[in-house]
Every structure is written in structure tokens, then in C-alpha cells.
């Protein structure tokens, strides 16, 4: 249970991190290759500390990893976590097509059961207590 709750929270952290347009733009930039804080700050008209804050959120959410090079600490996209988030949303069609196909089988099963019960129970049978 503990692990499940932790995973749930992880996913919430991921989506929380993705909810901000600047952070999405940072991820989009990183999808083209790694970059330093300085390089990332450039197009955003934002101070380095502000960008660093966003990077911390992304790092905590597991969406990016940062290099060990103390000077530059280049940021890199961590696609695994993003893929996980996307997998959860899945595609609506796939979710419902498969659900409905299961529903077909299940409704068939339910109705077969009902018919069998009807056959087994004589119509005018009355139980005396």
C-alpha cells in the first residue's frame, strides 16, 4: 500500500510540474538536447535564480536530470517519467474501446445467467415457509 501511495504522489508531482507553461517550454527545449541554466534562461527573459527554481521542480518530479559538472550542471530530459505520465492519460479511444468490448462479454454473461435461472425456476413455483 505504501508503495502505491508513493507512486500516486510521484505522479501528482509530475503533473504538478507539467502544469506550468515555463516548465513545459523548458522541457520542450531539452527535448532538442541538453542545456545549461544559462542557455535555458536566455529565451525566457527570466533571471537565472527563477529558472533554477523551475529546474528544481522538474528535477524533483523526475522529469529532468542534472549533470555532475559543478560549473555547468547541464540539464537533460528524463523521458521515462514523462512517458509514464503520458501512459496514464493513455488514449481515450483505447480505454473505452477495450472497456466496451469487455462490457459486451460481461452483459452476455449476465443475461445468460438470468436465462439459466429462469429455466431452472418453474414459473408457478411458490415457496411455503
Amino acid at each position, binding site marked *: 500500500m505504501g508503495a502505491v501511495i508513493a507512486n500516486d504522489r510521484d505522479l501528482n508531482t509530475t503533473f504538478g510540474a507539467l502544469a506550468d507553461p515555463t516548465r513545459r517550454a523548458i522541457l520542450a527545449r531539452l527535448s532538442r538536447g541538453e542545456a545549461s541554466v544559462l542557455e535555458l534562461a536566455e529565451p525566457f527573459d527570466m533571471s537565472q535564480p527563477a529558472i533554477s527554481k523551475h529546474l528544481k521542480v522538474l528535477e524533483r518530479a523526475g522529469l529532468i536530470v542534472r549533470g555532475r559538472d559543478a560549473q555547468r550542471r547541464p540539464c537533460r530530459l528524463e523521458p521515462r517519467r514523462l512517458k509514464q505520465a503520458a501512459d496514464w*492519460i493513455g488514449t481515450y479511444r483505447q480505454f473505452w474501446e477495450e472497456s466496451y468490448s469487455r462490457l459486451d462479454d460481461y452483459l452476455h454473461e*449476465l443475461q445468460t445467467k438470468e436465462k439459466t435461472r429462469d429455466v431452472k425456476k418453474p414459473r408457478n413455483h411458490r415457496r411455503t415457509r
Partner: protein
Amino acid sequence: MTSKNLEIIAEPGKTSFTTRRVVDAPRAIVFDAFTKCEHLTRWMGPRNLTMASCTTDLRVGGRYRFVFRGPDGNDVGFSGEYKEIVAPERIVRTFVFEPIPEAAAVETLELEESGGTTIIRTTTVHKSVENRDGHVNSGMEAGMTEGYARLDALLADMLQKR
């Protein structure tokens, strides 16, 4: 023989989308299948997800919540509140994909019986076109496997905040 295809109609620029699907059962049974957990846990969701928990408090103002568990053990919840219930033909309820609570929608389920089969119609109204597109988006998986080249647009679609 009626078509078992799931129709999804999402007109460009609209905040809502509708679906239509026919099943071979009277609507009273279908209504139960959509509202009782003993049934829902048997069919709702793709086969690779199990419904880890289910609650349906079927009354106006009552809440429902479905938690699905993926093959990797991760859970995700869908939940909302019943706004209108006309058994066995119509339910209006709010719908929240819990990881993105700001993208809440209102969902109407309508069941129409026709010669032993039931037409299931859903209408989902989102707050914005972007939220709707994020909900329906069918190209998303393909996009994700394309090496994240279209990441920007994709994420904007998925998670546009209003």
C-alpha cells in the same frame, strides 16, 4: 447486426465531444453495469489496468471514484459527483482525471433502448477546447514514441491550464 464501433465525435474548436456505442442488452442492465461497482469492476478499463477501488454513491450530490492500477503498480483515480440521475436512462456527473484536477468536465450518459439493444451516448463538456483535446487526443501515444520531437505542442494540449 448493429455496429459495435465506438463513435467519437469531437468537432474542431468545440469544448465538448460525444461518443456512441451500441450493446446487446436492455438498458436497465446497462444502467446497472454503469452504476454498480460489482459490475463496473468487471468491465471498466482496458485489460492491462485493474480497478483497484470503486465507489459509487448513486444519488444527486453523491460521489463516485474509480482507481485504476497499471501493470507497473501505479494508481490513478477518476472521480466526480452525480448531478442528475434518471434511472435507467440518464446520468449527469462531473468528471475529474485526478492528476489534472483543473481540467474537470461534465459528463452526460444517456441510454436509449431499441429492440433489446441499448444505444449508449456520452457527452463530455470541458472548460476549454485545449482540455477537451487533451482528453480525447488520439495521436498522443504516437507522438510520445516519436522521440518527443513534438513535445511542446503535445504537452500544451495535454495540460493547458485555464
